[in-house]
């Protein structure tokens, strides 16, 4: 039986969606959506790409995709979850294209990204923060994403499951593994 997944969408979100899908009110509603979501989306992308310029490029593309494909949104998840998924896919594609463009392996690319943080004028962390970013960057992709979504964005496992298309059980395992790896690495690197 083909049942539509039920999600709790607030009345406000429903109204915004209706306006987004109506060609007459689309532009105004889109302006509202951008204002509501730009900070969240920016930081979601930034945690994956680490650098401001790349994040800015990807953010623009994410909004272009949202504007273009809002009609195809089936409302089987929250609008924010759908947007998060677009942001995640765009960021991963951007990293892959960067790897291909510069003939980098993933490891070299992440090392370069972490080293660049030291000179980045838009990074306000100390060595411990850089170390944490380095440890997170080297986690396997799924563990990294689950950890970031849970740790920084406080998303529920159910929401993460909708974004990544993985079962809640598998996500809990990934999160547990990621957390343990980070704890272990931090303890090993800590000097007293």
């Amino acid at each position, binding site marked *: 039986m083909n049942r539509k997944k039920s999600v709790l969408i607030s009345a406000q979100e429903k109204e915004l969606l209706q306006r987004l899908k109506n060609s007459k009110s689309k532009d105004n509603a*889109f302006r509202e959506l951008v*204002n509501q979501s*730009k900070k969240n989306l920016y930081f979601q992308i*930034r945690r994956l790409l680490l650098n401001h310029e790349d994040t800015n490029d990807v953010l623009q593309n994410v909004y*272009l995709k949202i504007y273009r494909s809002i009609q195809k949104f089936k409302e089987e998840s929250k609008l924010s979850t759908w947007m998060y998924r677009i942001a995640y896919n765009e960021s991963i594609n951007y990293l892959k294209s960067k790897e291909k463009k510069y003939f980098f392996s993933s490891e070299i690319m992440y090392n370069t990204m972490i080293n660049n943080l030291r000179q980045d004028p*838009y*990074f306000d*962390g100390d060595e411990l923060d850089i170390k944490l970013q380095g440890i997170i960057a080297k986690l396997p992709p799924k563990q990294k994403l689950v950890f970031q979504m849970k740790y920084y964005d406080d998303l529920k496992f159910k929401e993460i499951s909708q974004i990544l298309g993985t079962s809640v059980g598998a996500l809990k395992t990934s999160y547990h593994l990621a957390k343990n790896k980070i704890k272990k690495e931090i303890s090993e690197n800590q000097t007293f």
Partner: protein
Amino acid sequence: MRKSNSFKVPEKYFENIDVEILEKLKFKKNVFTFPQNYFENIDSEKIIEKERSRSFYRNLLITSTVTTCLMILLILNTFTDNEFVDETFLVNDILEENFDYMNQNIIINRYSSNYIYQNYDNQIIMSNFDSDFDYLTID
């Protein structure tokens, strides 16, 4: 020599240090900064404009590609060698009624087409109305 345990630490301090560091980092989430007024300058109008110009250029590209393809097909069709009918075979065919050429575009050489034939007592008159009443009579 100073004993290593001359400084006391809280119970389970070292077991929990990693958790404390993670907690500290969690509260300091904003390590990533951005240019001043960055978010104020994110303009949805620019994004909409960009999408519109992109759609315009995409449609233009599709239209020009389709037009080019059609032109190539037309050119190929125009310059394709038409099969033309050998006069002797044509006359024989008509006379022996092997093939009904009526209502057919008969091309008897590369430069002529649309010959209509009439058969008067074994005299074939081919008339081409495309080129100023060009008659070809074959006995």
